[in-house]
């Protein structure tokens, strides 16, 4: 198996998980973020996902390398920066507005509905705007 084939299978499993969990339904996300009329579903999604991954992560990392690559590609930064927090805040606001985050939005494009497709288009524009702003600030 090659890395791309593996990644494709990962994508399919991820999408099915998203669908089953209800995260491709924006009202369930907004319901989780609406403390007044709280839908706790997303909490259980996180518990399920983190529960599995947190236990298996250290076990897998004991290997010298991943199965299909020569080295690990795990982020190494540790500093909590204003950039991290402001970015997360902006993301959070957008997430609460639309009820979409990147994964569910891409998956929901398969529905053919306008909103996920437009969301993803706007997301791409937002990413490009940021990279340009970032480059300008660096100067």
């Amino acid at each position, binding site marked *: 198996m090659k890395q791309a084939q593996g990644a494709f299978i990962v994508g*399919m499993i991820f999408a099915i998980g998203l669908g089953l969990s209800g995260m491709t*339904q924006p009202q369930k996300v907004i319901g989780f973020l609406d403390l007044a009329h709280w839908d706790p579903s997303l909490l259980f999604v996180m518990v399920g996902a983190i529960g599995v991954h947190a236990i298996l992560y250290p076990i897998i*990392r004991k290997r010298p390398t991943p199965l299909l690559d020569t080295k690990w590609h795990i982020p190494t930064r540790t500093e909590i920066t204003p950039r991290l927090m402001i970015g997360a805040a902006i993301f959070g*606001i957008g997430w609460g507005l639309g009820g979409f985050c990147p994964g569910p939005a891409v998956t929901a494009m398969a529905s053919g509905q306008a909103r996920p497709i437009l969301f993803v288009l706007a997301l791409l524009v937002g990413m490009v705007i940021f990279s340009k702003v970032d480059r300008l600030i660096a100067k």
Partner: protein
Amino acid sequence: MNMDFLNALLGGVLIGVAVTLMLWLNGRVTGISGIIAELLSTSGRRDAWRSAFLFGLLCGGFLLRLLNPGFFENTTDRGIGTILLAGLLVGFGTSMGSGCTSGHGVCGVSRLSMRSIVATMTFMAFGVASVWLFRTLIGGG
């Protein structure tokens, strides 16, 4: 509500399995915003695994649609303008903050990354504020 909770948990477990598989096979974190952002640059496009992953998401989506279009039911009242603004903010914010719910929320938190724990708490808090503000100013669902 009972079925909801079980489906949510099972769905979450599948997501956990998916990101664990990505780690085991390719040694990578499944940060979907990062995967998309990298594809916008030529260096990111060199590796096939990123587009393969996103294609997998789409194919999984089509499978879900075949099984039950209800998986994508959207009963929110957020219109096109709101959705476009939301997309812009999510694209901008995830790039600036180096991650989203999959990268920070699932992968980062699972490996006890302080950056990810802080980022996750931050976007959750602002998500709550965003919904509250919308409801207060505009109302509805």
